[in-house]
């Protein structure tokens, strides 16, 4: 059992990108949102609905973890993975394996940006679009 990020109320999203700002700012010391592990998107411009791309906290047979050749990714309680940066060889196989494209390599020879389900984006979301929920590992 562990807490994982959910974005089930995106109808309420106003597109302020505060979640990106704080994820990049707090977790990656960056003023720019490319270092955020959550990304807000629109389809069809601003008249379309917003949706959030982030780690969906897979459990059991975890694609990115299985794709990692060095064991840098291990399963975390509740779902998703924990990244051991020291073991990462920047091969990008994890990013290629993620079908929701929620793993980002922003710099050469650096480990990926990958959601650790810390909940900081949830804390700042002004409309409660994002939540942390308990999830079983199985």
């Amino acid at each position, binding site marked *: 059992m562990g807490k994982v990020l959910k974005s089930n109320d995106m109808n309420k999203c*106003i*597109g302020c*990108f505060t979640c990106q700002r704080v994820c990049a700012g707090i977790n990656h*010391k960056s003023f720019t949102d*490319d270092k955020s592990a959550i990304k807000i998107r*629109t389809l069809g411009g601003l008249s379309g609905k917003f949706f959030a791309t982030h780690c969906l906290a897979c459990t059991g047979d975890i694609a990115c973890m299985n794709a990692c050749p060095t064991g840098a990714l291990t399963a975390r309680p509740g779902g998703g993975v924990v990244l051991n940066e020291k073991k990462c060889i920047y091969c990008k196989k994890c990013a290629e394996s993620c079908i929701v494209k929620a793993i980002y390599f*922003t710099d050469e020879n650096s480990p990926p940006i990958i959601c650790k389900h810390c909940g900081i984006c949830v804390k700042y979301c002004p409309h409660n679009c994002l939540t942390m929920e308990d999830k079983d590992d199985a």
Partner: protein
Amino acid sequence: MLNEKYIKVLNIDLSSGKISVDLREDLKEFLGGVGVASKLLLENMAPELNPLSPEQPIIFAIGALSSIFPVVTKTVAMFISPVTGELGESYAGGRFAYTMFNAGIDALVIKGKAKKPCYISINNNRIDIKDARAFWGLHANQVGQYIRTVEGGQGKRSIIRIGPAGENLCRIANVNVDTYRHFGRMGLGAVFGSKNLKAIQVTGDITKEIKDQKKYLKVYNEIFNKVTDTKLMTKYHDLGTPINVNVLNIIEALPVKNLQQAHLEDAEEISGEHFAEKNLIRKIACVGCPVGCVHIGQVRREFDTGHEYETLNVAYDYELIATLGSNLGMSGSDAILELIDAVEEFGLDAVAGGICLAYATECFEKKLITEKETIVPLEFGNKENYLKAIKFMATKENEFYAALSDGVAVASQKYGGEEFAVSIAKNEMPAYHTGYGAIVGYSCGARHSHLCNGGYSYDQANHEFDKQALVDSVFDEEVKRCVLNSLIICLFARNVYDNATILSALDAVNAVEPGSLNDEYLEQLGLRIYKTKLKIKKALDFDLSKIQISKRVFVTPAMKEILDENLTREMIEMFKKKNKELLASDI
């Protein structure tokens, strides 16, 4: 630029296709935003030439705190205004500032004229001038859709573009920003058109490191909490600016039927409350703003028999409801949303467009013009004919509409009715008829907007009338807002960003030399920027003593008081004296 000692300026010459970058340390004394843009306009403009000459520049700039603190969302555009013939300045939210920041550009200077219709595509350091021949003639919304399909960057791009009005050099044409925001006033759309420039799209992902994370997050959190946990910005989030329809109607400051009145017996059907109840479907935000003041209203329109409907989703605000609503005698929120949608599609400034239609309607009523000019009879409250007239303006359907699309100052020179052509300094008047503060503010404000100096707020604060106090207050606010617009915050957050907050935010990201950050610094900065604007206006022969003010504003009572023209002009002269003193100073 953040973390650097210089301001990065990207120059694009559309005539030659040449692109260059300047790293300007000297511009740091203007901090960013309107400060940097004013200096660049002063350097690049050609005062002797027409505002629509290819040589004239368009300047865009973001500010010292753009994108990294809450509600710091605006980009400034500066140019020579084809509407007024002098300093042009306009602000837009949306995503343009965010993407400029991500692409690592502090300021953009566009000069020249492309041989054929083009659009500019910026992706970090990759800058292309691309073919837009097939886009020419498209509505603002359509061209956005096309560019979205051919360019990448979903979710982190900005597309600014013009509609047919800008292409046809209508002087009141605007630039649409990301569908729901605009560089609205003063005719930037026509300047785009004069350069054969249909659109600019920007994406970027250049990383900028936070040097002192602890300090930055502390200030970020303080501001974030002020924005989300206090009442400072509730008004903008709840009903939004349309709350002002009832407010201004009650105090009798709402323009009605070409400002023949400033009050409606019953404003309920066009009130912010009514829009919220009947049409509001969602609110969205500019990137970086947790408030989300962009109110989207929906209207269902039958386009054929057999229950055939289309749906319009339209952003609405107070000033649009006033100028395209009460000022045109419209009743009902659906009709107003349809008119807003039409000016959006054709790419006309909604405020100026509404006032032009109101002027034309009164001309028609007074028989200065006939259907020979107007093609369809223009009557207050007749939506269908207004929808046609909006198209006629954007396409310059005949000589009359061509003149009208250059603004009421131009049209009234030709067709008469100067006394009810509601403009000040040739700029269509903002929709707040509150009193002397407003009129002096519009006249003396660098861009003749209510947002230059908040004169309309001064009127509503019920000060005991004192002309010197009024002039001093409006002048001080004009200078203060030069600082806010160098950051560039959204002015809705002006009560959040007091001096102490600005200083701590600048300090947290090392935007200014440590040790020099104090109130004195901000005051000097404001004066330096304002003085630069005055230099621009002087070079363009602007003279406050010769300013044109519509007679209508002295006939229709403002907040129940008839304004005296002589007294107004006396205060304008007092303001001019202060300008002169600043110009002669060492600042």
